[in-house]
C-alpha cells in the first residue's frame, strides 16, 4: 500500500504536484488576500472595481472550463452569464416584494441554477457537435437569445433591462448590503468558493477526461467515454458557474439587460481567458483582473480606447500566444534551477525599450487623434502630463523616434533575454 502515497504524482502538464502544505498555502493566501484587499485599496472606486473583478474571475474561469479544459470554442458564453442575471433579478424582485426569508448572499445560487438549466438545454443542442460546428452553433444561440430577449420584454425588460434593489430582501446577520464594502465581501466569498470548486473539478476523473477530449476526442471514445457526454457536462457546469457570476453581477449592479448576453460580452470573456492564458488554471484569473481593469481605466484615459483594445488583442496573439500565465509558467523551470537572477536583468533590459516603444506608439496615436477627430478642440493635448501640440512636428517626430528606436532595441534585447532564458533552462536541466 505504499505506492499510492509515495509515488510522485503528476499533473496534466507533467509538472510535479505541489505537496500537501504548499497546496493549502495557496488557498490560505488567496483567502487572506481577498479579506485584506479592501484595507489596501479602500476607495469606493477600488471597491467597485474589485467587485467587478471578482465577478469576472468566475466568469472567465467558467469559460476556460470550455476552451482551456475541454477545447470547446464558444462564442455565446455570455448567454449564461446574462440568463443567470435575469433569473437572479426576478427572484430578487419577487423576494423583495414578497418578504421571502432569503438573504442576499444566497441569490447567486439562483443565477447558477438558471445558468445550469440553460446550459443543459443549449448544451444538449450544441455539444452533439465539436469544433467549428460547435463554435458556430454557440454563435447562433447567442445571437438568437439576444435578439429574442429584445422581443420577450416581460422577462428581459427590453433595451433597458430589469432593475432591482438588493437592500429589499431579508438582511443577513444584520448586513443590509447597501454599502459597497459588504457587497465586495459577498462577491469575494463567492469568488473564493467558485475558484476552489472549479479547481477541484479539474482534478476529478471528469476534469481529466475533459482534457483528453480536448486533446483527442476520437481516442477518448476508444477508452470508454462518450465524448459528447463529456462536452455536455462541461458545458452545463460552465453554464452553472457563468450563471453564478451573472447573479453576482446583478447583486453588484442591481440591473441586468439583454446586452449582457451579447457578442461583446462573449468576446470580452474570450479576451480575458486568452490574455490570461488558456493553458493554465490561473490564467483566466489574471486575464479577468487585467481586462476588467483596462476596461475601466482605458475609456477614461483616452477616447479612442477601442483602438488600444484592438492593438492589445493583436499584440497578444502575435507575441504572447500563451497568455500571461503562459509567460509566467515558462519561468517555473528557471525558478526551479534557481537561475532567476540570470534572466531577470535581461527581462528588465527588454522591458525598458518595450515601454519606450509603447509610449512612442501612444504618442503617435493620440497626436493623430487630436489632429483628426479632436481637431475642433484645438491642437493642444497633454500626454503623460507633458503638453504637446499636434500641429507642430515635435510630437510626431518624438513619437516615431521613440516607437522605432524602442522597437528595435526591444527586439535586440528580447533576443538576448531569450538566449539567457534558454541558457538558464539548459543549465538547470544539467545541474
Amino acid at each position, binding site marked *: 500500500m505504499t505506492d*499510492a502515497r509515495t*509515488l510522485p504524482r503528476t499533473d*496534466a502538464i*507533467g509538472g510535479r504536484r505541489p505537496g500537501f502544505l504548499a497546496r493549502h498555502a495557496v488557498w490560505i493566501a488567496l483567502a487572506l488576500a481577498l479579506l485584506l484587499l479592501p484595507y489596501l485599496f479602500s476607495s469606493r472606486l477600488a471597491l467597485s472595481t474589485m467587485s467587478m473583478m471578482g465577478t469576472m474571475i468566475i466568469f472567465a474561469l467558467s469559460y476556460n472550463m470550455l476552451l482551456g479544459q475541454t477545447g470547446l470554442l464558444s462564442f455565446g458564453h455570455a448567454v449564461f452569464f446574462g440568463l443567470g442575471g435575469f433569473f437572479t433579478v426576478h427572484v430578487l424582485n419577487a423576494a423583495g416584494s414578497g418578504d421571502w426569508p432569503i438573504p442576499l448572499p444566497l441569490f447567486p445560487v439562483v443565477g447558477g441554477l438558471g445558468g445550469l438549466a440553460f446550459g443543459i438545454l443549449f448544451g444538449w443542442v450544441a455539444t452533439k457537435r465539436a469544433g467549428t460546428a460547435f463554435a458556430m452553433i454557440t454563435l447562433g444561440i447567442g445571437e438568437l437569445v439576444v435578439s429574442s430577449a429584445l422581443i420577450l420584454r416581460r422577462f428581459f425588460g427590453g433595451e433597458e433591462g430589469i432593475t432591482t434593489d438588493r437592500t429589499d430582501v431579508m438582511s443577513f446577520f444584520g448586513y443590509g448590503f447597501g454599502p459597497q464594502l459588504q457587497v465586495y465581501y459577498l462577491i469575494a466569498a463567492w469568488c473564493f468558493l467558485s475558484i476552489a470548486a472549479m479547481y477541484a473539478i479539474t482534478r476529478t*476523473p471528469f476534469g481529466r*477526461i475533459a*482534457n*483528453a477530449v480536448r486533446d483527442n476526442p476520437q481516442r477518448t471514445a*476508444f477508452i*470508454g467515454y462518450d465524448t459528447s457526454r463529456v462536452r455536455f457536462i462541461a458545458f452545463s457546469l460552465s453554464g452553472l458557474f457563468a450563471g453564478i457570476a451573472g447573479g453576482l453581477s446583478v447583486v453588484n449592479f442591481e440591473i441586468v439587460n439583454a446586452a449582457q448576453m451579447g457578442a461583446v460580452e462573449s468576446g470580452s470573456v474570450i479576451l480575458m481567458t486568452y490574455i490570461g492564458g488558456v493553458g493554465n488554471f490561473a490564467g483566466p484569473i489574471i486575464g479577468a483582473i487585467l481586462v476588467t481593469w483596462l476596461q475601466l481605466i482605458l475609456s477614461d484615459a483616452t477616447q479612442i480606447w477601442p483602438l488600444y483594445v484592438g492593438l492589445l488583442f493583436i499584440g497578444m496573439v502575435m507575441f504572447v500566444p500563451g497568455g500571461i500565465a503562459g509567460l509566467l509558467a515558462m519561468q517555473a523551470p528557471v525558478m526551479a534551477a534557481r537561475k532567476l537572477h540570470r534572466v531577470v536583468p535581461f527581462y528588465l533590459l527588454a522591458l525598458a525599450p518595450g515601454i519606450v516603444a509603447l509610449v512612442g506608439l501612444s504618442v503617435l496615436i493620440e497626436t493623430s487623434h487630436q489632429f483628426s477627430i479632436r481637431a475642433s478642440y484645438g491642437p493642444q493635448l497633454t500626454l503623460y502630463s507633458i503638453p504637446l501640440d499636434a500641429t507642430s512636428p515635435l510630437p510626431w517626430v518624438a513619437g516615431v523616434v521613440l516607437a522605432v528606436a524602442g522597437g528595435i532595441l526591444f527586439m535586440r534585447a528580447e533576443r538576448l533575454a531569450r538566449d539567457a532564458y534558454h541558457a538558464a533552462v539548459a543549465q538547470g536541466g544539467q545541474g
Partner: protein
Amino acid sequence: MSATAKTPILELAGLRKSFGRMEIIRGVDLAVVQGERHAIIGPNGAGKSTLFHLVSGHLRPSAGAIRLRGESIEGLPPQSINRRGLSRSFQVTNIFPRLSVWENVRCATLWSLGHRYSFWRDVERLDDVTRRTEEILTEIDLIDRRRTPAGVLTYGEQRALEIGLTIAGHADVLLLDEPTAGMSHAETERVVALIRKVSEKRTLLMIEHDMQVVFDLADRISVLVYGEIIACDTPARIKANAAVQQAYLGTEAA
C-alpha cells in the same frame, strides 16, 4: 486449454462494408476463440484496418453481424463497445499529445475502474487508479517518462504508449493494428515481448505485416484479400498455403 476457451469470444458473420459503390469488406466470417492470439495479414488495402474499424465501432457495417461473447455489438458507438471489454490500438499513433504519459494512461484506466464522469472525486486520491496506472507504465516501460508530454516521446515510445492505452482498461479482447510498424529490429523484439506478456489471459486480434512477428506470436492466422478471408489456419499451414503465398507473402517468407 479449458473447455470454455474453445468458445468463440468474438464472432463476425457475413460482415460487409461499402464506401459509396466500392465494397471493401465482402462478407467476412471469423470466429476468434477465447484466449487465442489471432493475426490478420493481407495485402495493402485489403480491408484489415477497416475490419478493425467495424469491430471497434469506428465504422458501422453495411451488413452482417458482430458478436462479442454472444451479444451483438454492430452499430454500437466505440465507447459502448469498449465498455464491454474490447479495446483497440491504431495503425497511426493515436494518443493524447498534450497530456503527460501518466495522464494518458490514467485516463484510459478510469472507466473500467468505475469512475466514469464523476466530478466530485479527487482523481489523485483514487488509489486503485494510481496503482493500475503505475502497473501499466511499468509494463510498457515508460514509468521513467511519466511526466513527459506524450507528444514529444520518440516514435517507438509513442507506439508503446499506444499499446498501454489499449490494455489499461482491463479489456479482455485486444485489437492491435500494426503494433510494430516503423520499428527497428531491437524495438520490434521488445514490443513482441510486451505483446506476449499483455495478451496472456486475454484474447488478441492483431494486424501485422512483419511476418517474423506474426509467426512468432500468432496461434492462428487469417488472410484477408480483397475484403474476403481466403484462409484461416495455424502459422505453419498458412506458410505452406499456395494461395496465400501467391496473394501475399511473395518471396520474402518463401
